């Protein structure tokens, strides 16, 4: 794969092989959570093919982008969600009903 590109992940430049997906770039310095679940647990890529939606991040200001489906481009701004920020995605969620 020819050349490298630089993406900005949480304000830090990260160089990756061009053609890499954002999901690959996110783990280029170690496996870590990249999104907080509804209960605030760290989550990261699972399926690698766009079906599980666990690798969602903010890319160039657009929320809920599947990082495994997006190729890195020079200057791309990527933001992950810190863990333990429960409810950040579903602020207006109605309370769960008890079993019928």
């Amino acid at each position, binding site marked *: 794969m020819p050349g490298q590109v630089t993406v900005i992940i949480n304000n830090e430049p990260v160089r990756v092989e061009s053609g890499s997906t954002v999901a*690959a770039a996110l783990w280029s310095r170690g496996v870590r959570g990249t999104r907080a679940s509804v209960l605030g647990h760290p989550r990261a890529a699972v399926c690698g093919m766009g079906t599980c*939606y666990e690798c969602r991040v903010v890319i160039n200001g657009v929320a809920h982008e599947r990082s495994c489906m997006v190729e890195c481009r020079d200057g791309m701004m990527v933001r992950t969600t810190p863990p333990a920020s429960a409810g950040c995605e579903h602020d207006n969620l109605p309370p769960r009903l008890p079993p019928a």
Partner: protein
Amino acid sequence: MDHSCDILIIGAGPAGLHAARAASRSTRRPSILLVDENPSIGGQIWRRGAPAWAGRLLAGANACSISYLSSTTVLQRLGPRAVLASTLTPSGRGPIAARITFDTVILATGARELFLPFPGWTLPGVVGAGGAQALVKSGLDVTGKRMVVAGSGPLLLAVAGFLRSRGALVAAIAEQAPPAAIRRFALSLAGYPTKAFQGLMLRARLASVPYWTGAWPIRATGTDRIERVTIRRGDRDVEIPCDLLACGFGLVPSIHLAAVMGCEIRDGRVVTDDLLTTTAPHVLCAGEANGIGGVECAAIEGEMAGLAAAGMIDPARRLLPARARARRFAALLDSAFAPRSELSSLASPDTILCRCEDVTTGEVKPYTTWREAKIHARCGMGSCQGRVCGPIARYLFGLDPGDARPPAAPVDVAFLAAADPGAIPGESPLSE
């Protein structure tokens, strides 16, 4: 942006590419539009390694009108012969709306992995088996990473071999199928010499890696990522430190789009007749979405669907014996690698079942239908729309996640509004 074609093919994996090639050879010279969600062609199995003929085909080698749209997700039907999709501009900006009209559409949406929950399966670093391969092929560097490959099926060997070729240290391969089933399967390969040879080559390349049969993960532990996995092996448990656990229990058909298009789904598969016509008008379906059959089967069905869509019914019919043979092999795989009953009791009541909404196994258990589980527990109500937890709910509790409503993938309301579906008379995506 609007597109119009005679044959729309959704999915550029083995089935979709074979469909495109077969249709492109028709003397009727149909115009063909191939779309795929991914940045490149090849589907999951050929990810960035599609055969050279596929590239030549899309470059116009067969002198037919063929176009290809990457990073394009079909969201819903707009009418009998029209769909709405999200796509990117040629410079990569988007998503923007695309309305596509067609005479016939071929669904070649493939398969996804079956994940089964066990304590710790939501920790970062627990990925699919095919998932690990996909991530590495798309740039993830696993040099020096300690990995365990677990789950079921011949894919585990292929993935372990691939990960090693990329510098990973594969500590063990844990195959849940019992040793006797694997032996029976190996003997049955005598009728499929090519596959037997491929299997032997794979195994030889992995000679130094422990391959445990009758072994499965029961727990992953770590603080904010996986640090160890515990494998149950007969009557003892083995704890292995690792950076990544690649774990998949086989494949399940990807039927969401078919369901949204109005096709009948039965037992998690798209229902078709002999020539791959679905129950929805103008819709054919080829490959894994019709039931897991493997790459050869997907290729044959793709070719059949391409021929049928281009009006070449007799040539399509002549492929029926080859298709039947491929499906027989798939049935062998299915019985050898069927998940054992112990796997359904790995999750404890507080183990997450629906990852999008953080719904636990215990919270889903009281419900007897998928619909109730959705309404009362929010299982399957998140971004993946049941793609991960649906097959799990089926496996653990016998719930049938057959339904899917438009849009087939999450999309901004603003996107739908801007798409102005009213431009197509008589139909609106919101009038479901």
